[in-house]
């Protein structure tokens, strides 16, 4: 997470904020705070996963968004190399992948040694469908930040990048859980509030489209 995060920060936040003399103080402060959030989030992620994730993802992204917002038209300057910007988008995607699922706290080494290699063999292999699902999920998560670079209008472009990054992280987090989950048989009692809202929203869209 650190390497792609640093690259994304350097290529898309620090470069426009620190390479232009006209960049305002809030833009530079936002860029500095974003770096601080990235490092602090990674440091906190092991002992306090929830807080670390909040600082590492929301803090880093929020401060980067502040820097971008404060830069304003400076983001469209000729100093921004398209190749560097595209690589920065790729780095944002990898950063999102890194935060997708933080590993659980490791088991004690002694416990693993006691278990012995014979007891550590997997009970089952992942089905092919699940592997295909994971590949599709990762592809979607990588494609979102790249798609956001199609948006060129100021303001909307920033929204597209923020939505793409948040969407990548959410897709990976929720998608991994859904693909791995083995729920019980009492499926009829699952909550239906958001499902109903989603169906109503789609019905409203269909109705407006027909009219």
């Amino acid at each position, binding site marked *: 997470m650190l390497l792609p995060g640093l690259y994304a920060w350097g290529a898309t936040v620090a470069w426009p904020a620190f390479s232009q003399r006209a960049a305002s103080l809030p833009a530079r402060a936002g860029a500095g705070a974003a770096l601080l959030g990235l490092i602090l989030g990674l440091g906190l992620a092991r002992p306090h996963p929830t807080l670390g994730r909040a600082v590492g993802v929301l803090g880093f992204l929020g401060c980067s968004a502040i820097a971008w917002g404060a830069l304003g038209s400076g983001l469209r300057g000729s100093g921004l190399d398209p190749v560097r910007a595209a690589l920065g988008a790729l780095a944002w995607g990898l950063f999102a992948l890194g935060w997708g699922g933080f590993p659980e706290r490791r088991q004690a080494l002694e416990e693993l040694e006691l278990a012995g290699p014979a007891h550590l063999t997997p009970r*089952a292999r992942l089905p092919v469908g699940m592997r295909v*699902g994971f590949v*599709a*999920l990762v592809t*979607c998560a990588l*494609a*979102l930040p790249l*798609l*956001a670079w*199609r*948006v*060129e*209008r100021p303001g*909307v472009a920033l*929204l*597209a990048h923020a*939505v*793409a990054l948040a*969407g990548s992280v*959410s*897709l990976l987090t*929720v*998608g991994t*859980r*859904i*693909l791995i*989950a*083995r*729920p*019980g*048989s*009492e*499926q009829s*009692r*699952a*909550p239906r*509030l*958001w*499902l109903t*809202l*989603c169906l109503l*929203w*789609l019905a409203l*869209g269909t109705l407006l489209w027909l009219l």
Partner: protein
Amino acid sequence: MVASSANRPDWLSRWLLVGAAGALLFGVWRLASAPELPALYWLVAAALSLKAGSDRERALASR
């Protein structure tokens, strides 16, 4: 080992995930052209679908 019925994946959660991914991709892609309202519609649909899938998975996994 024979898989029991309790081990079956929840297909509704998976379809909600597929719908959310599709709506997100289309929404971000559609943001490139004006007006933005259709794109925002699909982004909201993606958020609702993802939330519905997430809640359903959480509720079923806790049983």
